[in-house]
Each structure stands twice: as C-alpha cells, then as structure tokens.
C-alpha cells in the first residue's frame, strides 16, 4: 500500500503545478471568452448581460466578414504558395549534400526571426518612397508597375500575403522531406523500372504516399492564417480603411482600441469556432481522396 501511496503522491505533486498553469492560462481563457461574449462590458464598471447580442452583431458586421475573407485569402496563399514550392523543393533537396543542406537552412531561416522584424523589413520593401521594390521596378523599366503596395486596397491583401508565404516555406519543406524519406526506396526503383516518368512518379506514388502529411500541412496552413496577426498588425494595422483587417486584428481593435471587451470576447470565441470548422471541414473534404 505504501508503494501505491508513494506513486499517488508523486503523481499528484508532480502534475499539479503544470496542470494548474496550463488550465489557468490556456483552457480557462477559452471558457471565459465564451462567457464574456454574453456581456456588454467596457473593461471598467458593471457588465450587463446581453445574451447573444455580441455574437449577432459580429455576424451582421460587414467588416467581420471582410476580415474572415482576408483570413481565407491568407489560407489560400499559404496552401497554394507554400505547399507546392515546399513539395517541389523537397523532391530536389532530400539528399544530404552540403549544398542541399545550405539551401534548406536558408529557406528555413526566416522562421527563427521575430515576425515584428519580418513585418518591418517588408514594410521597407513595400514603402512608397524608400521601398526597394519600387526602386527595382523603376530600374528594370517597369516603372508603370510602381504603386503603394500596402496602401492600395485592391492589392494590399496580396502584398501582405507575400511575406507570409516567404517566411513559412521552411517547416513544410522539412516535413515533406522527412515524409518522402519514409517512402520505401523499392517504390522508386520499381517506378523507374516501369518507366514511369517523373511527373507520373510524383502524381502516382509520392503524393498518395505522403497524403497524410499533406493533410497535416493544410491544417497547419489554416491555423497559421489565424496567427498572421503579428505580421499584418505591423505592416498595416488592418488598414487602410480596414482593407487588410483579419479576424485577430478585428478582435484586437474592437477590444483594445474602442474598449469593447464583451464584443472582443465574442469575436475570440467565433475565431475558435471558425478555426475548428475550417480544420474539420478540410479534413472531411480530403478524406474522399485519401488513399
């Protein structure tokens, strides 16, 4: 019995601090955001219960929908921009020569830099006066392409997508390389004997074999789009005229700029719901094609 008690004591004392920390700072906030979403509260004074009003207001607000659309643009840019590049690179870079390792390291490098710095560097690239992108365009005779990359509401969502793609190819590259290395080499040899051309080999063998990995990558693209907050907050703050608003910047601005804590909490809850819907939806869509 003493033995069992010792085990129990160790487990309880050992787990408690981590569990408390984790529950208080990760799980409780989620419950709270749903709860506060039912209240009208300015951060000070009394909170008044308003039922589903905050949620209904968010769903009626065109800016909310634009923010959602912008989030989806980031998802699309990630899936269509990062994954194909990472996949092609992974097919070329799976050998461990010095040169290949150098390229891998370079591609991964932006991942370790603060998004604030990345956002600011790209701010300089796009800057209307000192921006090096416009300088390059001028010098190669494409002066007519010069524009205010972050100020023009028709294109700035695409402008802000570029650094998102640029900075995040690295991890997908490494994920795909390790997945491809797990394909038995006999498969490749057999395909060669059968005379399968490279494109066919890719389509018929590699993609089906790493389909599960691709699914994971797509989920990461979706959740990554909800994390694009930092970059876009630094580059545009969601502006001009809320043209680059994301769900997270929308939540931030409503909460900490106009002090509507209840409304911000409701939007937080909706972000969780939306990300779960996107993740589950993408999994269901891809299940049919699974091999």
């Amino acid at each position, binding site marked *: 019995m003493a033995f069992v008690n010792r085990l129990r004591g160790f*487990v309880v004392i050992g787990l408690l601090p*981590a569990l408390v920390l984790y529950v208080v700072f990760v799980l409780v*906030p989620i419950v709270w955001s749903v709860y506060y979403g039912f209240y009208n509260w300015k*951060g000070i004074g009394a909170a008044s219960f308003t039922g589903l009003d905050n949620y209904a207001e968010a769903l009626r607000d065109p800016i909310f929908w634009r923010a959602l659309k912008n989030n989806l643009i980031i998802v699309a840019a990630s899936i269509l921009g990062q994954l194909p590049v990472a996949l092609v690179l992974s097919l070329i870079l799976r050998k461990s020569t010095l040169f290949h390792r150098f390229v891998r390291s370079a*591609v991964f490098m932006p991942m370790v830099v603060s998004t604030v710095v990345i956002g600011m560097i790209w701010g300089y690239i796009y800057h209307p006066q000192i921006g090096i992108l416009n300088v390059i365009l001028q010098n190669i005779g494409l002066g007519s392409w010069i524009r205010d990359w972050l100020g023009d509401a028709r294109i700035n969502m695409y402008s802000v997508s570029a650094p998102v793609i640029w900075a995040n190819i690295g991890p997908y590259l490494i994920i795909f390389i390790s997945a491809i290395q797990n394909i038995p080499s006999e498969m490749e040899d057999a395909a060669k004997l059968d005379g399968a051309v490279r494109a066919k080999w890719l389509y018929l063998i590699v993609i089906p074999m790493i389909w599960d990995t691709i699914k994971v990558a797509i989920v990461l693209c979706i959740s990554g789009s909800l994390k694009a907050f930092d970059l876009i907050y630094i580059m545009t703050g969601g502006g001009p005229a809320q043209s680059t608003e994301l769900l997270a910047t929308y*939540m931030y601005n409503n909460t900490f700029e106009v002090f509507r804590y209840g409304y911000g909490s409701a939007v*937080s809850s909706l972000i969780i719901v939306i990300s779960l819907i996107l993740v589950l939806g993408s999994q269901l869509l891809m299940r049919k094609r699974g091999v």
Partner: protein
Amino acid sequence: MMNLISPETLTGKTVRRPLPRRRKSGWLWGVDTVLLVYALATIYPLLWLFISSFKSVRDFSANPFALPSVWQFENYTRAWEIAGIGRAFANSVIVTLGSLALTLILGTLTGYILSRLNFRFKGVIMGLFVLGMLIPIHSTLVPLFIMMKNLHILDTYASLILPYAAFELPVAIFIVAAYLTSVPKELEEAAMIDGNGYWGIFCRIIMPLAVPAMATISILGFLRSWNDFAFALVFINDQSLKTLPLSLSIFSDGYGTDYSLTMAAMSIAVIPTVIVYLIFQEQIMKGMVAGAVKG
C-alpha cells in the same frame, strides 16, 4: 581532368556508363542554379537588414542596395542608448529565461509522469494537453487580458512568463515523452531496487538522460518567447518592461524615420536568434516540425 577524356570524346559515340548517377548533367546544374538563387533570395532581406544597419540615413536612402560607403558602427551604440534597446534586451532576456526555466522543469516532470507512470485520469490529462494545441493562441488574448487584470499581474514580468510557459508546455511534454520511449524501463526498476523513490529516480535518472530533449525544448522555447509580439503587445504597457519586439514595433508606424537607428535596433533583436539558429540548425528544424504539429 580524367573526365575530359570520356568515352564519348574518344569514340564519338554514347557509351553507357556504369554509374550514370555520378554524372552531373546540364539540367541538374540548371536546377542547382535555381536553388541557389532561391536560397539567396530568401536570405537577402535579412542580409539587406544587416548591411543597411551600418549606413547613415542619407546613404541608406541614396544607395539602398550598395554596401555602406562608411561603416557606421555607432548606429548600434546609438540604438542601444537612445532607443532604449538595452533595457528592452534585458527585459527579453529576463522573460525568456523565466519562461524557459518554468517550461523545462514542469515540462520534463509532466512529460515523465504522463509517459512512464500509470494512474487514473492519465488519458484525460493527456487529452487536455492535446486539446490545447488546437486553440489559436490569439483568440485567448482578450480573456487572458481580463483575467490578468483581475489577478493584478498585468504589466509585470509574470504576465509574459506564465502564459509563455503555459503555451509551451504541450510541446515540451510531447518532446520529453517521445524521447523517453528510447530509455529502457529497467533503469528505473534498478534505481528503485537501490532504494530510490520517484523523486530520486526523476532527479538522478530521468533528468540527466533527458538532457537532449531538454535542449530541444530550450531552443524552441527561446525562439518563441524571444520573438513573441502579440502577448507583449497586450499585456505590457509600462515602457520600462517592454521586450525587444514590442520596442521595435514603435518604429513600424512611420514614426521612426531614423532608418539607420531602426535597422540597428532590429539587428540587435535578430542577431541572438540567428546565432542560436546557426549553431543548432538541425535540432531547430526537427524540433519546430515536431512542435509545428501543435499548430
């Protein structure tokens, strides 16, 4: 030189070689060139940052691509003093070390308990930690802010250290658990026969064995807390407590037209992470991919 006298040049005919893979065709050279250009294009913005950080403001505007005409090393001393980067650097160090210490101790202990011991509710607790990985952290900003306000820990180091550690815990636990699968159970049994309790086993056997896993956790935790922006933005208002990314962000809204000062400040923030990256590349790539599944 041997390659010059290939069977083709001697006979004028194509001869099948025993090792065709060895030959580097023009096509492959083309691929390598494209790869090289791509790699350089990826690191160029960072190189440009470092080069620009040594320029004067006028030099920066006049020759955005050239090397500095005069290397202005005093940009760094100016940034350190005027922009308060020294203070911000110290804050980042304190916050990063604090959250790392917490993550390492709790993560290793919890990872050990959850992966090696059997008890009731083990599955439930493991499930809770997995669940947390699906949550987009930005959606917790508002409730965390309200909660910390009530707990009166806003604008303290704790307001960053505690959530950084909490959000890093799941990854830490999974890295430790995965690592410990390679450690034979007999070691613990032997230690128990030698009269060690669970704490003794943890401190004398598990901790020393788990050092490589702890190294990975430290590197990932360092990069995350050092680079975090969103939490610092919301939880810290006090000028004297601002971390590096937060201090830098002041320059981002066109307010800072002293570009060389800004560039130097940004470089000061980036240099530690680049050094860590260059030393621990492989570990970082593997660890981040393992942690990325966290989403």
